[in-house]
């Protein structure tokens, strides 16, 4: 299984090793690791809590991953996203892409992150040192990052009438 949603931490080298074990056809591996920053808008953050939508989260990550495989010649990918309360400096997300072409590995990793950020149902709540909580707003720059992939807009998934 190449998509995991978990409370536990992850290790980038371990995931690279798992994806590339006994393979000599891969020439390029890109990883992206997102971590909790200790400051937001000039305010110190005591912790970050990630809420998610169990079931839909995995489904969205798998959809995003399948789209990357359809678009680039990838040999292997992995997406790991944590949930729960995380301290500054802690890992949040890991994306790994492996390909024989380095540009494919780079582009696919960027694409996965852009799509993950605007489609995977995660929400971040920052808790300040004084205990006050703040839900992080979606950033317009994330929408812009997505737009550059210039995909046709995905039609709204229709729901078939029952019966």
């Amino acid at each position, binding site marked *: 299984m190449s998509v995991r949603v978990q409370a536990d931490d992850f290790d980038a080298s371990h995931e690279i090793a798992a994806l590339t074990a006994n393979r000599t056809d891969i020439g390029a591996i890109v990883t992206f690791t*997102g971590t909790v920053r200790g400051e937001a808008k000039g305010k110190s953050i005591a912790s970050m809590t*990630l*809420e*998610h*939508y169990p*079931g*839909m989260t995995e*489904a*969205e990550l798998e959809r995003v991953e399948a789209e990357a495989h359809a678009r680039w010649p990838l040999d292997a990918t992995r997406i790991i*996203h944590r949930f729960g309360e995380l301290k500054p400096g802690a890992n*949040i*997300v890991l994306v790994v892409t492996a390909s024989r072409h380095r540009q494919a590995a780079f582009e696919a990793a960027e694409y996965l*992150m852009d799509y*993950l*950020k*605007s*489609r*995977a*149902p*995660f*929400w*971040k*709540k920052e808790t300040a040192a004084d205990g006050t909580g703040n*839900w*992080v*707003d*979606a*950033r317009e720059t994330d929408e812009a990052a997505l737009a550059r992939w210039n995909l046709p807009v995905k039609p*709204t*998934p*229709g*729901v*078939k*009438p*029952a019966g």
Partner: protein
Amino acid sequence: MKLLYFAWVRERIGRAGETLELPAEIRTVADLVAWLKTRGPEYAEAFARPDLVRAAINQEHVKPDAPIAGAREIAFFPPVTGG
């Protein structure tokens, strides 16, 4: 109908989900939001700015004009901020 709420939508409504009987005239997600807003001040506050609330039917993102016929599970939440 099984409804789920996440993040500040959940906090404002005061529960993570509920199962409700929906009036037959509710056809779209937007209809459902309008009806929920009449159920109490906590719903009115949660959906005060419908443009800030996203929806999913059966765990897939949908737009406000999506029909709810055939839905097993409808979720409301703010724009996502993972990664």
